[in-house]
Protein backbone atom coordinates (compact mmCIF):
# COMPACT_ATOMS: atom_id res chain seq x y z
CA UNK A 1 0.00 0.00 0.00
CA UNK A 2 1.35 3.41 -0.86
CA UNK A 3 0.20 6.84 0.27
CA UNK A 4 1.41 9.96 -1.57
CA UNK A 5 3.96 7.65 -3.17
CA UNK A 6 5.31 6.57 0.20
CA UNK A 7 5.41 3.00 1.36
CA UNK A 8 3.84 2.12 4.69
CA UNK A 9 7.24 1.48 6.17
CA UNK A 10 8.48 4.99 5.36
CA UNK A 11 5.36 6.52 6.88
CA UNK A 12 5.73 4.48 10.03
CA UNK A 13 9.39 5.40 10.42
CA UNK A 14 8.64 9.08 9.87
CA UNK A 15 5.96 9.08 12.54
CA UNK A 16 7.84 7.11 15.15
CA UNK A 17 10.98 9.24 14.84
CA UNK A 18 9.03 12.49 14.88
CA UNK A 19 6.91 11.30 17.79
CA UNK A 20 10.01 10.33 19.77
CA UNK A 21 11.49 13.72 18.97
CA UNK A 22 8.36 15.54 20.14
CA UNK A 23 8.15 13.49 23.33
CA UNK A 24 11.55 14.81 24.27
CA UNK A 25 10.12 18.33 24.54
CA UNK A 26 6.96 17.64 26.51
CA UNK A 27 7.17 20.80 28.60
CA UNK A 28 7.55 22.88 25.50
CA UNK A 29 4.46 21.34 23.98
CA UNK A 30 2.50 21.80 27.20
CA UNK A 31 3.38 25.49 27.02
CA UNK A 32 2.29 25.66 23.39
CA UNK A 33 -1.00 24.07 24.39
CA UNK A 34 -1.38 26.68 27.14
CA UNK A 35 -0.65 29.53 24.77
CA UNK A 36 -3.95 28.74 23.07
CA UNK A 37 -5.97 30.17 25.97
CA UNK A 38 -7.39 33.01 23.90
CA UNK A 39 -10.80 31.34 23.35
CA UNK A 40 -11.17 30.99 27.13
CA UNK A 41 -10.39 34.65 27.72
CA UNK A 42 -12.98 35.56 25.11
CA UNK A 43 -15.47 33.14 26.64
CA UNK A 44 -15.15 34.79 30.06
CA UNK A 45 -15.78 38.18 28.43
CA UNK A 46 -18.78 37.18 26.34
CA UNK A 47 -20.49 35.29 29.15
CA UNK A 48 -19.77 37.94 31.78
CA UNK A 49 -21.34 40.61 29.60
CA UNK A 50 -24.41 38.60 28.65
CA UNK A 51 -23.79 38.98 24.97
CA UNK A 52 -24.43 35.33 24.17
CA UNK A 53 -28.14 35.79 23.63
CA UNK A 54 -27.59 38.04 20.67
CA UNK A 55 -25.64 35.22 18.99
CA UNK A 56 -28.51 32.85 19.65
CA UNK A 57 -26.44 31.04 22.26
CA UNK A 58 -27.05 30.63 25.98
CA UNK A 59 -24.17 30.45 28.45
CA UNK A 60 -23.84 26.68 28.15
CA UNK A 61 -23.80 26.84 24.37
CA UNK A 62 -21.20 29.59 24.52
CA UNK A 63 -18.99 27.55 26.86
CA UNK A 64 -19.23 24.50 24.62
CA UNK A 65 -18.48 26.53 21.52
CA UNK A 66 -15.32 28.08 22.96
CA UNK A 67 -14.04 24.83 24.42
CA UNK A 68 -14.55 23.24 21.00
CA UNK A 69 -12.81 26.18 19.32
CA UNK A 70 -9.88 25.71 21.68
CA UNK A 71 -9.68 21.99 20.89
CA UNK A 72 -9.98 22.48 17.14
CA UNK A 73 -7.20 25.05 17.27
CA UNK A 74 -5.01 22.65 19.27
CA UNK A 75 -5.20 20.09 16.52
CA UNK A 76 -5.01 22.39 13.53
CA UNK A 77 -2.14 24.64 14.60
CA UNK A 78 0.48 25.00 11.89
CA UNK A 79 4.01 26.34 12.17
CA UNK A 80 5.58 24.98 8.97
CA UNK A 81 6.70 28.40 7.74
CA UNK A 82 8.86 28.96 10.83
CA UNK A 83 10.55 25.54 10.68
CA UNK A 84 10.99 25.82 6.97
CA UNK A 85 12.50 29.28 7.14
CA UNK A 86 14.98 28.14 9.75
CA UNK A 87 15.93 25.03 7.77
CA UNK A 88 16.21 27.03 4.60
CA UNK A 89 18.41 29.75 6.11
CA UNK A 90 20.68 27.35 7.95
CA UNK A 91 21.18 25.21 4.85
CA UNK A 92 19.54 22.14 6.35
CA UNK A 93 17.14 22.08 3.46
CA UNK A 94 19.81 20.92 1.02
CA UNK A 95 20.08 17.33 2.32
CA UNK A 96 16.29 17.19 2.63
CA UNK A 97 15.94 18.06 -1.02
CA UNK A 98 18.30 15.26 -2.00
CA UNK A 99 16.25 12.60 -0.25
CA UNK A 100 13.54 10.78 -2.18
CA UNK A 101 10.94 12.31 0.11
CA UNK A 102 9.14 15.59 -0.43
CA UNK A 103 10.42 17.92 2.33
CA UNK A 104 6.90 19.15 2.99
CA UNK A 105 5.85 15.61 3.91
CA UNK A 106 8.52 15.62 6.59
CA UNK A 107 6.88 18.70 8.10
CA UNK A 108 3.45 17.11 7.81
CA UNK A 109 4.64 14.16 9.85
CA UNK A 110 6.21 16.50 12.42
CA UNK A 111 2.90 18.32 12.80
CA UNK A 112 0.90 15.12 13.17
CA UNK A 113 3.36 13.74 15.72
CA UNK A 114 3.12 16.99 17.66
CA UNK A 115 -0.67 16.72 17.68
CA UNK A 116 -0.38 13.27 19.20
CA UNK A 117 1.91 14.67 21.90
CA UNK A 118 -0.53 17.50 22.55
CA UNK A 119 -3.47 15.17 23.15
CA UNK A 120 -2.86 14.51 26.87
CA UNK A 121 -2.36 18.22 27.60
CA UNK A 122 -5.51 19.12 25.70
CA UNK A 123 -7.42 16.55 27.77
CA UNK A 124 -6.06 17.98 31.03
CA UNK A 125 -7.04 21.52 30.01
CA UNK A 126 -10.49 20.24 29.03
CA UNK A 127 -10.94 18.61 32.43
CA UNK A 128 -10.01 21.88 34.13
CA UNK A 129 -12.46 23.74 31.94
CA UNK A 130 -15.27 21.42 33.01
CA UNK A 131 -14.25 21.76 36.67
CA UNK A 132 -14.72 25.52 36.42
CA UNK A 133 -17.86 25.27 34.27
CA UNK A 134 -19.51 22.02 35.36
CA UNK A 135 -22.86 22.93 33.84
CA UNK A 136 -21.38 22.95 30.35
CA UNK A 137 -20.28 19.31 30.52
CA UNK A 138 -21.30 17.25 27.52
CA UNK A 139 -20.23 14.15 25.66
CA UNK A 140 -20.61 14.46 21.91
CA UNK A 141 -22.12 11.49 20.13
CA UNK A 142 -19.82 9.17 18.21
CA UNK A 143 -20.97 10.51 14.86
CA UNK A 144 -20.42 14.10 16.03
CA UNK A 145 -16.98 13.19 17.29
CA UNK A 146 -16.09 11.50 14.03
CA UNK A 147 -17.36 14.37 11.87
CA UNK A 148 -15.60 16.94 14.06
CA UNK A 149 -12.39 14.92 13.85
CA UNK A 150 -12.69 14.81 10.08
CA UNK A 151 -13.46 18.53 9.83
CA UNK A 152 -10.54 19.38 12.12
CA UNK A 153 -8.21 17.32 9.96
CA UNK A 154 -9.43 19.04 6.83
CA UNK A 155 -9.00 22.37 8.62
CA UNK A 156 -5.45 21.39 9.46
CA UNK A 157 -4.83 20.51 5.81
CA UNK A 158 -6.10 23.89 4.62
CA UNK A 159 -4.04 25.74 7.24
CA UNK A 160 -0.99 23.70 6.37
CA UNK A 161 -1.35 24.33 2.64
CA UNK A 162 -1.92 28.05 3.20
CA UNK A 163 1.22 28.33 5.25
CA UNK A 164 3.20 26.16 2.84
CA UNK A 165 2.29 28.64 0.16
CA UNK A 166 3.96 31.35 2.23
CA UNK A 167 6.83 29.02 3.14
CA UNK A 168 7.52 28.40 -0.55
CA UNK A 169 8.23 32.11 -0.83
CA UNK A 170 11.36 31.38 1.25
CA UNK A 171 12.94 30.48 -2.05
CA UNK A 172 12.59 34.12 -3.11
CA UNK A 173 12.92 36.08 0.13
CA UNK A 174 14.76 35.48 3.39
CA UNK A 175 11.96 36.68 5.62
CA UNK A 176 8.85 34.93 4.48
CA UNK A 177 7.71 34.35 8.06
CA UNK A 178 6.93 38.07 8.17
CA UNK A 179 4.39 37.44 5.42
CA UNK A 180 2.75 34.82 7.60
CA UNK A 181 1.34 37.65 9.71
CA UNK A 182 -0.75 38.71 6.75
CA UNK A 183 -2.48 35.32 6.93
CA UNK A 184 -2.58 35.19 10.70
CA UNK A 185 -4.41 38.50 11.15
CA UNK A 186 -7.49 37.62 9.04
CA UNK A 187 -7.36 34.11 10.51
CA UNK A 188 -7.57 35.53 14.02
CA UNK A 189 -10.66 37.59 13.33
CA UNK A 190 -12.53 35.59 10.71
CA UNK A 191 -11.96 32.01 11.89
CA UNK A 192 -14.30 32.17 14.86
CA UNK A 193 -11.57 31.89 17.47
CA UNK A 194 -12.67 35.08 19.20
CA UNK A 195 -16.41 34.93 18.63
CA UNK A 196 -18.83 32.50 16.96
CA UNK A 197 -19.38 33.73 13.42
CA UNK A 198 -23.13 33.80 13.98
CA UNK A 199 -22.50 37.05 15.87
CA UNK A 200 -21.21 38.75 12.74
CA UNK A 201 -23.38 41.23 10.88
CA UNK A 202 -24.67 39.69 7.66
CA UNK A 203 -22.33 41.52 5.29
CA UNK A 204 -19.20 40.67 7.25
CA UNK A 205 -20.33 37.06 7.47
CA UNK A 206 -20.81 36.91 3.69
CA UNK A 207 -17.33 38.28 3.17
CA UNK A 208 -15.84 35.86 5.70
CA UNK A 209 -17.45 32.91 3.99
CA UNK A 210 -15.57 33.73 0.81
CA UNK A 211 -12.28 33.19 2.66
CA UNK A 212 -10.97 29.83 3.89
CA UNK A 213 -10.84 31.01 7.52
CA UNK A 214 -14.33 30.15 8.84
CA UNK A 215 -13.72 26.53 7.84
CA UNK A 216 -10.61 26.40 10.02
CA UNK A 217 -12.24 26.89 13.45
CA UNK A 218 -15.87 27.88 13.27
CA UNK A 219 -17.12 24.94 11.20
CA UNK A 220 -15.42 22.08 13.11
CA UNK A 221 -16.12 23.76 16.47
CA UNK A 222 -19.81 24.00 15.66
CA UNK A 223 -19.95 20.30 14.86
CA UNK A 224 -18.13 19.35 18.06
CA UNK A 225 -20.23 21.57 20.30
CA UNK A 226 -23.46 20.25 18.79
CA UNK A 227 -24.65 23.53 17.28
CA UNK A 228 -26.87 23.33 14.19
CA UNK A 229 -24.57 23.33 11.19
CA UNK A 230 -24.81 22.86 7.43
CA UNK A 231 -22.53 19.83 7.10
CA UNK A 232 -22.72 19.47 3.35
CA UNK A 233 -21.90 23.11 2.72
CA UNK A 234 -19.02 23.09 5.23
CA UNK A 235 -17.33 19.97 3.94
CA UNK A 236 -17.86 21.12 0.37
CA UNK A 237 -15.97 24.36 0.99
CA UNK A 238 -13.23 22.62 2.96
CA UNK A 239 -12.58 20.25 0.09
CA UNK A 240 -12.88 23.06 -2.43
CA UNK A 241 -10.16 25.05 -0.67
CA UNK A 242 -7.91 22.01 -0.56
CA UNK A 243 -8.36 21.40 -4.27
CA UNK A 244 -7.48 25.03 -4.96
CA UNK A 245 -4.50 25.18 -2.62
CA UNK A 246 -2.84 21.83 -3.29
CA UNK A 247 -1.92 22.46 -6.95
CA UNK A 248 -0.93 26.06 -6.12
CA UNK A 249 1.53 24.92 -3.47
CA UNK A 250 2.84 22.26 -5.80
CA UNK A 251 3.45 24.74 -8.62
CA UNK A 252 5.02 27.39 -6.41
CA UNK A 253 7.24 24.80 -4.78
CA UNK A 254 8.50 23.50 -8.12
CA UNK A 255 9.21 27.03 -9.33
CA UNK A 256 10.99 27.78 -6.06
CA UNK A 257 13.20 24.70 -5.98
CA UNK A 258 14.51 25.66 -9.40
CA UNK A 259 15.72 28.93 -7.89
CA UNK A 260 17.16 27.34 -4.78
CA UNK A 261 20.83 28.20 -4.35
CA UNK A 262 21.55 26.57 -0.97
CA UNK A 263 22.08 29.27 1.61
CA UNK A 264 25.67 29.43 2.79
CA UNK A 265 26.98 27.05 0.16
Amino acid at each position, binding site marked *: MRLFGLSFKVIKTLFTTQYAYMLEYRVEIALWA*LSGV*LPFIMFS*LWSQNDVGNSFGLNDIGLARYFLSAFLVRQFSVVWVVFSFEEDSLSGRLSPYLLQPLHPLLRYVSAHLAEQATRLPFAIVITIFFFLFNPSSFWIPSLSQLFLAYLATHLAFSIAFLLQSLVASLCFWTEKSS*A*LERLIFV*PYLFLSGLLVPLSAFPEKVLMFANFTPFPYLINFPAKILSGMPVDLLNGFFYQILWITILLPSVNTLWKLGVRRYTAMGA
Partner: protein
Amino acid sequence: MKRYLKTIKLFWSTAFAAQLEYQLNFLIELLAMLGTLSGSIFILSLFFSDGRQLGDWSWEAALVIQGVYTFLDGLTNTLLRPNLTEIVNYVREGTLDYVLLKPIDSQFWLSIKKFSFAGIPEIILGLGIVFWSAIRTGINLSIYNTLAFFVSLFIGFVILYSIWFLIAASSIWFVKTWNATEVLRALLAAGRYPITAYPVILRFIFTLLLPVAFLTTFPAEAVLGELKFFIILFGLALSTFFFVLSRQFWIYALKHYTSASS
Protein backbone atom coordinates in the same frame (compact mmCIF):
# COMPACT_ATOMS: atom_id res chain seq x y z
CA MET B 1 25.24 57.55 31.91
CA LYS B 2 26.64 59.45 28.94
CA ARG B 3 28.36 56.31 27.76
CA TYR B 4 25.06 54.44 27.84
CA LEU B 5 23.27 57.11 25.84
CA LYS B 6 26.03 57.05 23.26
CA THR B 7 25.78 53.26 23.06
CA ILE B 8 22.01 53.44 22.49
CA LYS B 9 22.57 55.91 19.67
CA LEU B 10 25.08 53.60 18.03
CA PHE B 11 22.87 50.51 18.52
CA TRP B 12 19.83 52.11 16.99
CA SER B 13 21.57 53.74 14.07
CA THR B 14 23.09 50.40 13.06
CA ALA B 15 19.68 48.78 13.57
CA PHE B 16 18.18 51.37 11.24
CA ALA B 17 20.81 50.71 8.58
CA ALA B 18 20.26 46.97 8.84
CA GLN B 19 16.51 47.30 8.49
CA LEU B 20 16.70 49.44 5.41
CA GLU B 21 17.65 46.23 3.69
CA TYR B 22 14.17 44.85 4.32
CA GLN B 23 11.98 47.73 3.27
CA LEU B 24 9.12 45.46 2.35
CA ASN B 25 8.92 44.50 6.03
CA PHE B 26 7.72 47.99 6.89
CA LEU B 27 4.84 47.62 4.49
CA ILE B 28 3.93 44.16 5.78
CA GLU B 29 4.04 45.33 9.39
CA LEU B 30 1.91 48.32 8.51
CA LEU B 31 -0.70 46.16 6.79
CA ALA B 32 -0.72 43.63 9.63
CA MET B 33 -1.11 46.42 12.16
CA LEU B 34 -4.02 48.05 10.33
CA GLY B 35 -5.68 44.64 9.95
CA THR B 36 -5.27 43.83 13.63
CA LEU B 37 -6.59 47.20 14.71
CA SER B 38 -9.66 47.13 12.51
CA GLY B 39 -10.33 43.52 13.51
CA SER B 40 -10.16 44.33 17.21
CA ILE B 41 -12.36 47.37 16.85
CA PHE B 42 -14.86 45.24 14.94
CA ILE B 43 -14.89 42.58 17.69
CA LEU B 44 -15.24 45.34 20.28
CA SER B 45 -18.24 46.74 18.41
CA LEU B 46 -19.98 43.36 18.79
CA PHE B 47 -20.01 43.87 22.56
CA PHE B 48 -21.81 47.16 22.10
CA SER B 49 -24.49 45.95 19.70
CA ASP B 50 -28.04 46.29 21.08
CA GLY B 51 -26.96 49.29 23.17
CA ARG B 52 -25.02 47.29 25.73
CA GLN B 53 -21.97 48.46 27.65
CA LEU B 54 -18.79 46.61 28.39
CA GLY B 55 -18.19 46.44 32.14
CA ASP B 56 -19.53 50.01 32.65
CA TRP B 57 -17.31 51.34 29.89
CA SER B 58 -18.84 53.38 27.11
CA TRP B 59 -17.83 52.78 23.49
CA GLU B 60 -15.47 55.77 23.37
CA ALA B 61 -13.90 54.86 26.72
CA ALA B 62 -13.36 51.28 25.54
CA LEU B 63 -11.67 52.70 22.44
CA VAL B 64 -9.21 54.50 24.71
CA ILE B 65 -8.21 51.08 26.03
CA GLN B 66 -7.72 49.81 22.48
CA GLY B 67 -5.50 52.82 21.90
CA VAL B 68 -3.40 52.10 24.98
CA TYR B 69 -3.12 48.46 23.92
CA THR B 70 -2.05 49.47 20.42
CA PHE B 71 0.55 51.82 21.86
CA LEU B 72 2.02 49.14 24.14
CA ASP B 73 1.89 46.61 21.33
CA GLY B 74 3.88 49.01 19.17
CA LEU B 75 6.42 49.46 21.94
CA THR B 76 6.59 45.69 22.30
CA ASN B 77 7.24 45.30 18.61
CA THR B 78 9.92 47.97 18.50
CA LEU B 79 11.83 47.11 21.65
CA LEU B 80 10.75 44.14 23.73
CA ARG B 81 10.18 41.45 21.14
CA PRO B 82 13.31 42.01 19.03
CA ASN B 83 15.54 42.11 22.11
CA LEU B 84 14.09 39.76 24.68
CA THR B 85 13.29 36.89 22.33
CA GLU B 86 16.97 36.84 21.35
CA ILE B 87 18.15 36.03 24.89
CA VAL B 88 17.10 32.40 24.42
CA ASN B 89 19.28 32.15 21.33
CA TYR B 90 22.28 33.69 23.07
CA VAL B 91 21.97 31.11 25.82
CA ARG B 92 21.40 28.20 23.47
CA GLU B 93 24.27 29.02 21.16
CA GLY B 94 26.61 30.14 23.91
CA THR B 95 27.02 33.62 22.41
CA LEU B 96 25.94 35.07 25.74
CA ASP B 97 29.62 34.70 26.67
CA TYR B 98 30.51 37.55 24.35
CA VAL B 99 27.81 39.75 25.81
CA LEU B 100 29.02 39.11 29.35
CA LEU B 101 32.59 39.98 28.41
CA LYS B 102 31.62 43.41 27.13
CA PRO B 103 32.43 46.32 29.44
CA ILE B 104 28.79 47.30 29.73
CA ASP B 105 25.88 46.08 31.84
CA SER B 106 24.61 42.84 30.33
CA GLN B 107 20.93 43.42 31.12
CA PHE B 108 21.18 46.83 29.46
CA TRP B 109 22.87 45.38 26.40
CA LEU B 110 20.35 42.56 26.06
CA SER B 111 17.33 44.84 26.52
CA ILE B 112 18.22 47.68 24.22
CA LYS B 113 20.50 46.36 21.47
CA LYS B 114 17.83 46.10 18.80
CA PHE B 115 15.22 48.51 17.65
CA SER B 116 12.58 47.65 15.11
CA PHE B 117 11.45 50.77 13.30
CA ALA B 118 8.45 49.04 11.78
CA GLY B 119 6.65 49.34 15.14
CA ILE B 120 6.79 53.13 15.28
CA PRO B 121 3.60 53.80 13.26
CA GLU B 122 1.73 51.60 15.74
CA ILE B 123 3.00 53.66 18.68
CA ILE B 124 1.91 56.91 17.05
CA LEU B 125 -1.45 55.52 15.99
CA GLY B 126 -2.07 54.14 19.49
CA LEU B 127 -1.49 57.52 21.09
CA GLY B 128 -3.66 59.15 18.45
CA ILE B 129 -6.56 56.81 19.23
CA VAL B 130 -6.16 57.41 22.97
CA PHE B 131 -6.44 61.19 22.74
CA TRP B 132 -9.00 61.26 19.94
CA SER B 133 -11.39 58.91 21.78
CA ALA B 134 -10.71 60.53 25.14
CA ILE B 135 -11.80 63.88 23.73
CA ARG B 136 -14.85 62.27 22.14
CA THR B 137 -16.04 61.03 25.53
CA GLY B 138 -16.58 64.70 26.36
CA ILE B 139 -14.02 65.10 29.12
CA ASN B 140 -11.67 68.04 29.13
CA LEU B 141 -8.11 66.89 29.00
CA SER B 142 -6.39 68.55 31.93
CA ILE B 143 -2.63 68.69 32.37
CA TYR B 144 -2.96 66.56 35.47
CA ASN B 145 -4.80 63.81 33.56
CA THR B 146 -2.28 63.83 30.74
CA LEU B 147 0.55 63.63 33.22
CA ALA B 148 -1.14 60.80 35.15
CA PHE B 149 -1.67 59.02 31.83
CA PHE B 150 2.00 59.10 30.88
CA VAL B 151 3.10 58.10 34.37
CA SER B 152 0.76 55.10 34.37
CA LEU B 153 1.83 54.18 30.84
CA PHE B 154 5.39 54.19 32.08
CA ILE B 155 4.37 52.00 35.03
CA GLY B 156 2.68 49.59 32.65
CA PHE B 157 5.66 49.40 30.36
CA VAL B 158 8.10 48.76 33.22
CA ILE B 159 5.89 45.94 34.54
CA LEU B 160 5.58 44.42 31.07
CA TYR B 161 9.31 44.63 30.48
CA SER B 162 10.19 43.14 33.86
CA ILE B 163 7.85 40.15 33.58
CA TRP B 164 9.04 39.46 30.06
CA PHE B 165 12.67 39.77 31.06
CA LEU B 166 12.10 37.45 34.04
CA ILE B 167 10.75 34.74 31.77
CA ALA B 168 13.49 35.28 29.21
CA ALA B 169 16.13 35.12 31.95
CA SER B 170 14.85 31.74 33.08
CA SER B 171 16.19 30.40 29.78
CA ILE B 172 19.55 30.18 31.56
CA TRP B 173 18.14 27.03 33.17
CA PHE B 174 15.49 25.86 30.74
CA VAL B 175 17.08 27.02 27.46
CA LYS B 176 13.91 26.70 25.45
CA THR B 177 11.59 29.29 26.93
CA TRP B 178 10.42 31.20 23.98
CA ASN B 179 7.09 29.49 24.07
CA ALA B 180 6.72 30.55 27.71
CA THR B 181 6.74 34.10 26.39
CA GLU B 182 4.04 33.00 23.93
CA VAL B 183 1.86 32.05 26.90
CA LEU B 184 2.54 35.48 28.35
CA ARG B 185 1.62 37.17 25.08
CA ALA B 186 -1.60 35.17 24.88
CA LEU B 187 -2.58 36.25 28.38
CA LEU B 188 -1.64 39.86 27.71
CA ALA B 189 -4.20 39.92 24.90
CA ALA B 190 -6.72 40.15 27.74
CA GLY B 191 -5.57 43.76 28.04
CA ARG B 192 -7.59 44.72 24.99
CA TYR B 193 -10.69 44.94 27.16
CA PRO B 194 -11.40 46.77 30.42
CA ILE B 195 -10.62 44.79 33.53
CA THR B 196 -14.13 45.31 34.92
CA ALA B 197 -15.54 43.32 31.98
CA TYR B 198 -14.01 40.11 33.36
CA PRO B 199 -15.41 37.75 35.99
CA VAL B 200 -14.25 38.49 39.54
CA ILE B 201 -11.58 35.76 39.74
CA LEU B 202 -9.95 36.93 36.54
CA ARG B 203 -10.11 40.54 37.71
CA PHE B 204 -8.12 39.54 40.75
CA ILE B 205 -5.57 37.58 38.70
CA PHE B 206 -5.19 40.33 36.12
CA THR B 207 -4.63 42.99 38.79
CA LEU B 208 -2.26 41.35 41.22
CA LEU B 209 -0.73 38.18 39.79
CA LEU B 210 -0.32 39.17 36.16
CA PRO B 211 -0.96 42.91 36.29
CA VAL B 212 -2.68 43.31 32.93
CA ALA B 213 -4.88 45.99 34.52
CA PHE B 214 -1.84 48.21 35.02
CA LEU B 215 -0.93 47.90 31.36
CA THR B 216 -4.12 49.14 29.72
CA THR B 217 -7.12 49.74 32.00
CA PHE B 218 -5.40 52.05 34.48
CA PRO B 219 -3.67 54.28 31.91
CA ALA B 220 -7.02 54.59 30.13
CA GLU B 221 -8.72 55.54 33.40
CA ALA B 222 -5.96 58.05 34.01
CA VAL B 223 -6.54 59.93 30.78
CA LEU B 224 -10.29 59.89 31.45
CA GLY B 225 -9.64 61.37 34.89
CA GLU B 226 -11.08 58.41 36.76
CA LEU B 227 -7.94 56.89 38.16
CA LYS B 228 -7.57 57.13 41.92
CA PHE B 229 -4.31 58.63 43.08
CA PHE B 230 -3.42 55.72 45.35
CA ILE B 231 -3.49 53.35 42.37
CA ILE B 232 -0.71 55.38 40.76
CA LEU B 233 1.27 55.11 43.98
CA PHE B 234 0.55 51.40 44.19
CA GLY B 235 1.56 51.04 40.53
CA LEU B 236 4.84 52.83 41.16
CA ALA B 237 5.57 50.47 44.02
CA LEU B 238 4.53 47.41 42.01
CA SER B 239 6.59 48.37 38.96
CA THR B 240 9.62 49.08 41.14
CA PHE B 241 9.14 45.69 42.76
CA PHE B 242 8.95 43.90 39.40
CA PHE B 243 11.93 45.80 38.03
CA VAL B 244 14.13 45.07 41.05
CA LEU B 245 12.98 41.46 40.91
CA SER B 246 14.01 41.14 37.25
CA ARG B 247 17.36 42.75 38.05
CA GLN B 248 18.07 40.50 41.04
CA PHE B 249 16.86 37.45 39.17
CA TRP B 250 19.22 38.19 36.31
CA ILE B 251 22.19 38.55 38.67
CA TYR B 252 21.17 35.30 40.35
CA ALA B 253 20.69 33.56 37.00
CA LEU B 254 24.11 34.59 35.77
CA LYS B 255 25.68 32.77 38.71
CA HIS B 256 24.20 29.60 37.23
CA TYR B 257 25.24 30.27 33.68
CA THR B 258 27.59 27.57 32.51
CA SER B 259 27.81 28.52 28.82
CA ALA B 260 26.92 26.15 26.03
CA SER B 261 29.07 23.11 25.19
CA SER B 262 31.51 23.61 28.03
